[in-house]
């Protein structure tokens, strides 16, 4: 293994990278969910409609439910609560969003705004959002490889109450 490769692996496996990736992913999903929830669902419906993927009758139910999933999964991942499950839900959403963006690119649909962040003011084209999602998916893989997330509430809540021997199994 070359020194550069070893250096990269050491850097990528650093706990700070895992924590930053989790905070970034969780924060992005939580914020984008909240923004969509506090504005009229029709705005998100308009964004969904532009993808030309779903029948019109599915657009409203999706526009009204998906932001709740985004917000809760993002918030749980941000806090490190039920981290594996929230990471899986975030990963699934990312895969679906990336596939949807990819299909617009393949069909030659040009979107000025992917609708990813509601009216937050971040307007990304479908091409930019597609590439950004691939980077986020790489972060998901990095988090998925982590044995145990650092700085996560899961870890704190599952920690034994004290380490003075009270939790040690008693000899037979």
């Amino acid at each position, binding site marked *: 293994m070359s020194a550069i490769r070893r250096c990269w692996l050491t850097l990528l496996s650093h706990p700070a990278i895992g924590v930053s990736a989790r905070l970034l992913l969780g924060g992005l999903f939580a914020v984008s969910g*909240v923004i969509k*929830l*506090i*504005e*009229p669902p*029709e*705005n998100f*419906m*308009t964004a969904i*409609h532009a993808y030309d993927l779903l029948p*019109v009758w599915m*657009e*409203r139910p999706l526009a009204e439910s998906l932001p*709740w999933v985004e*917000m*809760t999964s993002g*918030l*749980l991942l941000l*806090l490190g*609560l*039920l981290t594996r499950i929230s990471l899986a839900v975030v990963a699934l959403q990312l895969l679906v969003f990336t596939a949807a963006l990819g299909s617009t690119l393949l069909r030659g649909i040009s979107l*000025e705004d992917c609708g990813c962040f509601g*009216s937050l003011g971040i307007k990304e084209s479908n091409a930019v959002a597609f590439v950004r999602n691939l980077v986020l998916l790489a972060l998901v893989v990095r988090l998925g490889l982590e*044995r*145990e997330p650092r700085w996560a*509430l*899961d*870890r704190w*809540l*599952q*920690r*034994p109450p004290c*380490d003075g021997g009270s*939790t040690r199994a008693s000899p037979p």
Partner: protein
Amino acid sequence: MGRASSRKHHHHEESAGPATPARGGRDWRPWLAAVVVIGVAIGLVLWLRPAPPKVVIPSANPFRGPAGAAIVMTEFSDFQCPSCRAVEPTLKEVLAAYPTQVKLVYVNFPLPMHQFAEKAAVAALCANEQGKFWDYHDRLFEHQTDWTAGADVRPLFDGYAGELGLDHARFDACLASGRMLALLRADIARGTALKIEGTPTLYVNERRVAVGATTADMKVMIDEALRAAS
């Protein structure tokens, strides 16, 4: 030294793999915490969510249909927007189906991305001064691809005014005065207050019409509104 070794011991515990599986039923804690966090988040969102603003459009805005119609449809539109042009036949069909019950009010909402949309809106409002808003409106949509392709829209806009028999001097004076900009800004402010992001955005009374709604979808909404009003 003792302190250092205790820290080391602690670190060893932390990196020893996944947290100890809950003994004595401790693993419900993350689930309980998650339920609490989700509950608080949902509560906060529902509390922070603003009530949908009312669609209040002054009677001075151009409208089609009877003035005292039971149902008011409001259209936030942009003359340079292809989707706004595409929705025109649907709106005409809806108005034809409810000749005495529905009024369609036009509100300008030129999008910043459309270079000539604001000029077109002002020209239509100047035509409105001479009672020809809807003729001018139809002309702008019919010839949308012509005037959006050029660099200077003014000769074409003057041409449409001439074809419709508008008083040229009055039309030119209106365009030059900029007095329609105040009306335009007021229309845009109304759309912004409703958190409108795209055009066309349509309402049946206070209910927003879904994007891509067909004539049949709009008729369902109108029938529901008529039933509620009776």
